[in-house]
């Protein structure tokens, strides 16, 4: 067999060796069927006759091999001689056989391809019958020769198509082309008699078959259209060639005729001088118009002009006519040929013109001007024509490049079926889908929510899927979301489709033996023998690992359970202590204890954070309002958590329990300050008020107050930076949470709090701190608002009671007395100047920004003051005011405009409250 195989290699160019073997396997185990061999002599001449008709290399290859056998051809044993397998061809024509057998043979390959074949055949080829290129052979065996002959025939058929385009040939060709295509498709597959499991029809999605059929229909449509297009293209090419030939002939004829007509035209020219002048003008006009026309129109119009100019002579006429049909077909022809023809035509015209000129010039000297004009005009015409050609070429280039790019980009189209794409999409989407987006990526979710609330108010839907990526992405980036929404929408559409497909499949799959309402796989095997137990997978995985809290250090929430126990125990201990105190009477006083250690504060703070996170998670899990029971239960749970937080903050602990108060200790670390606003938004107003009172009472214990002296030193250090950071955090977080309460407090409350403030703290120390100033400003401004509303109020019940007013007056006066001696030192710049030892106040860096709160405080102070008090204020602050105004007005001391403006405005804040203005101060 080896030598046969070797020969086969020489001949077959396209057929796979494996396919050869497999085909042998199909042919009932016999390598060659020697049962019905016809006489070889009969066969050979026929083959010889057949081969030349199919021009091509394969036949040439056959010839030498066929000539080798010679005389020893009669016996069967001759097969084993060193001959080509083709010499043993037992039949006349293998091509038809092959074509006939191809469908049946291929059927065994795979049902998948068989499907297409069926539909292929069923959808209606141009010739449904197999090719009849020769006699039908009765052999039931496909042999090597058959395949090869078929292949060669396909080659030859293709070649035939190029040489002699005719309808029957085309039909043959399309068939022949169909078969190589099929061959190419089948060739790689033969080693798999069964298709890959993925490709089985029943394994595909329910919509797959629909897609299949649609695809096939489309495929057939495309093929048909392609055939039609090919036919048309051929026709056009023929026409093109014919026209080209025609045109060339015509040109030659014209030139010949021109020569003969020259004599005649000389006479005609003389008489037509006047006419020509006019026409020349017309020509110029039309030229200008032509410049704006597309280039394709130039040739016929030029031809027309020539027609007009040189009379109605036949050559020009003749030339015009072919131009018209020429132009029509121009749209269809390939562009380069079009271009060539255009060039040819124009060159011919140019020649014509020059020949005319050439012939005219010697005879007509008196028209030399005209000739020059003509020449110029012709030059311009030619130049314009050239320009238009160039332009057209450039456009052509662009178009070509664009088409090339499109072709390049789409070279890998249609590689995957829709089911393949769905498969991949399903995998990708399944990665995104999460039951609980908060467990997967908590910070992204929260960040997205914060961003969304800051920008537009968008719907905070608890998105089941796409909760992680989609919602956040859409919310944040709105500007560059030009393309992104569509990608998201597309993905969502795909997901929807996949989900629907899956749902349909599930519905189709569920039959009687599958149980309803079961999670997990059920219909895996028949339940006849022994029903398998159902898998109930709990979607809520959080409860699955309740006591592993100590192992999960990364999850705050998982330890919340353990922590809340601790909190409750702690609160219980506190309650017990307080109870003992109450019972024990006031003799012992509040149980004094050591302040919280650093460790203790941190532990408590972490517990608080756990509670707060739990609270916020509860808020997110809030059930809808329709479900009354669930809402009630949720609210109860929510309230409980808030209570726990309240207790954990230790606000209710008696004031003098420790120095600092436990609450103050909790507020000392920066994370304690940051925690407060998150907590107070859930508190009731009473609770918030209590908190404020506590804060006011223990103000001087705050670290920001205690360490504020560091801020007055100009030298930088780590501690100073820390204090700065702490102060910032305090002003940003704690004061923010206090503001709503302070802004709505009654006069009585305010005066009460001021009283406590003054009583328990040293005002001079407090007033030198930024937090202190902030708090005082808050109080005073609130009172001012109350006063103003008093003036506008119509409803008498809103007005504060007279005793409140009195109380406030007393308090205020007390406060005023206390503060007045320290007024200049309220300014941070002053303090810094003093501490730095000699730098004038106005040269302290950032003086204006750090002083501004103080100026505001002074303004509120003066608003509440009586006239005498204002006098006092002015007297004490005179130096400061004058300093500022002076430095602001002097040009050389201050560098930029901003600083000057700020300085002046600072002073004006205060002066306007007094009813004065800085401009009144004369320098």
């Amino acid at each position, binding site marked *: 067999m080896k030598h046969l195989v070797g020969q086969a290699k020489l001949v077959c160019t396209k057929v796979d060796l494996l396919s050869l073997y497999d085909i042998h396997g199909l042919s009932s185990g016999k390598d060659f069927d020697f049962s019905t061999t016809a006489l070889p002599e009969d066969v050979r001449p026929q083959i010889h006759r057949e081969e030349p008709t199919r021009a091509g290399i394969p036949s040439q290859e056959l010839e030498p091999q066929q000539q080798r056998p010679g005389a020893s051809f009669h016996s069967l044993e001759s097969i084993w001689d060193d001959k080509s397998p083709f010499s043993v061809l037992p039949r006349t024509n293998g091509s038809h056989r092959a074509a006939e057998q191809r469908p049946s043979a291929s059927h065994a390959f795979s049902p998948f391809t068989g499907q297409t074949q069926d539909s292929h055949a069923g959808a209606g080829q141009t010739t449904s019958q197999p090719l009849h290129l020769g006699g039908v052979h009765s052999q039931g065996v496909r042999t090597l020769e058959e395949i090869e002959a078929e292949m060669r025939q396909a080659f030859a058929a293709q070649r035939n198509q190029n040489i002699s385009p005719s309808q029957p040939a085309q039909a043959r060709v399309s068939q022949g082309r169909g078969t190589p295509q099929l061959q190419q498709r089948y060739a790689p597959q033969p080693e798999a008699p069964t298709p890959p499991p993925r490709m089985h029809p029943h394994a595909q999605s329910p919509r797959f078959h629909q897609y299949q059929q649609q695809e096939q229909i489309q495929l057939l449509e495309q093929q048909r259209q392609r055939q039609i297009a090919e036919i048309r293209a051929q026709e056009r090419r023929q026409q093109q060639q014919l026209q080209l030939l025609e045109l060339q002939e015509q040109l030659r004829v014209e030139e010949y005729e021109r020569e003969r007509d020259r004599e005649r035209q000389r006479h005609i020219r003389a008489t037509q001088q006047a006419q020509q002048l006019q026409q020349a003008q017309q020509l110029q006009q039309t030229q200008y118009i032509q410049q704006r026309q597309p280039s394709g129109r130039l040739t016929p119009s030029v031809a027309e002009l020539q027609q007009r100019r040189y009379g109605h002579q036949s050559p020009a006429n003749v030339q015009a006519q072919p131009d018209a049909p020429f132009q029509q077909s121009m749209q269809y022809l390939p562009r380069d040929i079009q271009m060539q023809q255009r060039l040819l035509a124009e060159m011919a015209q140019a020649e014509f013109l020059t020949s005319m000129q050439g012939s005219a010039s010697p005879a007509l000297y008196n028209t030399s001007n005209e000739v020059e004009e003509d020449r110029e005009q012709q030059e311009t015409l030619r130049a314009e024509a050239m320009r238009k050609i160039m332009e057209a070429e450039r456009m052509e280039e662009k178009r070509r490049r664009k088409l090339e790019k499109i072709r390049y980009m789409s070279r890998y189209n249609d590689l995957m079926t829709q089911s393949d794409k769905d498969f991949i999409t399903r995998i990708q989407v399944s990665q995104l889908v999460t039951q609980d987006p908060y467990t997967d990526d908590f910070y992204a979710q929260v960040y997205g929510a914060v961003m969304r609330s800051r920008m537009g108010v968008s719907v905070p839907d608890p998105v089941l899927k796409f909760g992680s990526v989609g919602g956040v992405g859409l919310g944040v980036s709105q500007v560059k979301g030009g393309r992104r929404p569509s990608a998201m929408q597309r993905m969502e559409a795909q997901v929807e489709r996949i989900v629907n497909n899956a749902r349909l499949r599930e519905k189709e799959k569920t039959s009687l033996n599958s149980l309803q309402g079961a999670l997990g796989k059920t219909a895996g095997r028949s339940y006849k023998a022994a029903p398998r137990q159902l898998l109930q997978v709990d979607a809520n995985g959080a409860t699955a690992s309740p006591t592993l809290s100590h192992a999960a*250090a990364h999850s705050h929430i998982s330890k919340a359970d353990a922590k809340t126990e601790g909190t409750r125990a702690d609160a219980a201990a506190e309650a017990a202590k307080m109870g003992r105190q109450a019972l024990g009477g006031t003799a012992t006083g509040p149980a004094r204890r050591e302040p919280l250690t650093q460790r*203790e504060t941190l532990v408590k703070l972490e517990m608080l954070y756990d509670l707060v996170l739990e609270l916020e998670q509860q808020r997110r899990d809030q059930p809808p309002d329709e479900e009354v029971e669930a809402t009630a239960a949720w609210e109860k749970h929510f309230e409980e958590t808030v209570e726990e937080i309240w207790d954990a903050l230790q606000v209710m602990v008696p004031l003098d329990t420790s120095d600092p108060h436990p609450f103050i200790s909790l507020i000392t670390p920066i*994370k304690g300050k940051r925690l407060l606003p998150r907590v107070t938004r859930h508190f009731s107003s009473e609770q918030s008020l209590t908190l404020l009172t506590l804060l006011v009472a223990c103000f001087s214990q705050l670290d920001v107050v205690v360490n504020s002296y560091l801020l007055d030193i100009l030298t930088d250090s780590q501690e100073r930076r820390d204090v700065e950071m702490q102060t910032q955090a305090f002003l940003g977080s704690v004061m923010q949470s206090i503001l709503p309460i302070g802004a709505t407090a009654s006069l009585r409350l305010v005066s009460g709090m001021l009283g406590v403030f003054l009583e328990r703290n040293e005002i001079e120390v407090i007033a030198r701190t930024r937090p202190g100033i902030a708090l005082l400003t808050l109080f005073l401004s609130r009172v001012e608002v109350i006063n103003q509303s008093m003036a506008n109020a119509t409803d008498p019940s809103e007005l504060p009671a007279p005793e409140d007013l009195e109380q406030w007056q007393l308090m205020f006066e007390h406060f005023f007395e206390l503060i007045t001696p320290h007024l200049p030192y309220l300014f941070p710049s002053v303090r810094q100047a003093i501490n730095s030892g000699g730098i004038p106040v106005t040269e302290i860096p950032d003086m204006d920004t750090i002083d501004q709160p103080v100026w505001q405080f002074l303004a509120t102070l003066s608003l509440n003051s009586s006239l005498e008090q204002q006098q006092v204020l002015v007297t004490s602050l005179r130096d400061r005011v004058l300093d500022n105004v002076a430095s602001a007005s002097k040009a050389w001391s201050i560098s930029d405009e901003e600083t000057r403006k700020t300085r002046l405005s600072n002073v004006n804040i205060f002066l306007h409250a007094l009813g004065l203005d800085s401009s009144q101060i004369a320098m």
Partner: protein
Amino acid sequence: MDPSSGIQEPFDLIRLSLSERVFVKLRGDRELTGILHAYDGHMNLILSDVEETIMIVEQVEGAPEGQSTVNIAKRKMNMLFVRGDGVILVSPPSRT
């Protein structure tokens, strides 16, 4: 020791120091101080406002007894991610 001890394992101690300034000792004679923002089971750390101190031990040629001087190089960074396997210890900053 702690009345309501939520601390059950060493990692909880690190947890207490979240958002606080910590001192970290690393392999390769390096030390960091920074504000701890996050950590995980590998002891990967995310710190901000970090100052790194590198101690360079050099042999002095002159003294044959092997005296070496220690030079210190410092650098500051805003945000830092520290790989856990280089961390030797994490502690609150030394209080005076």
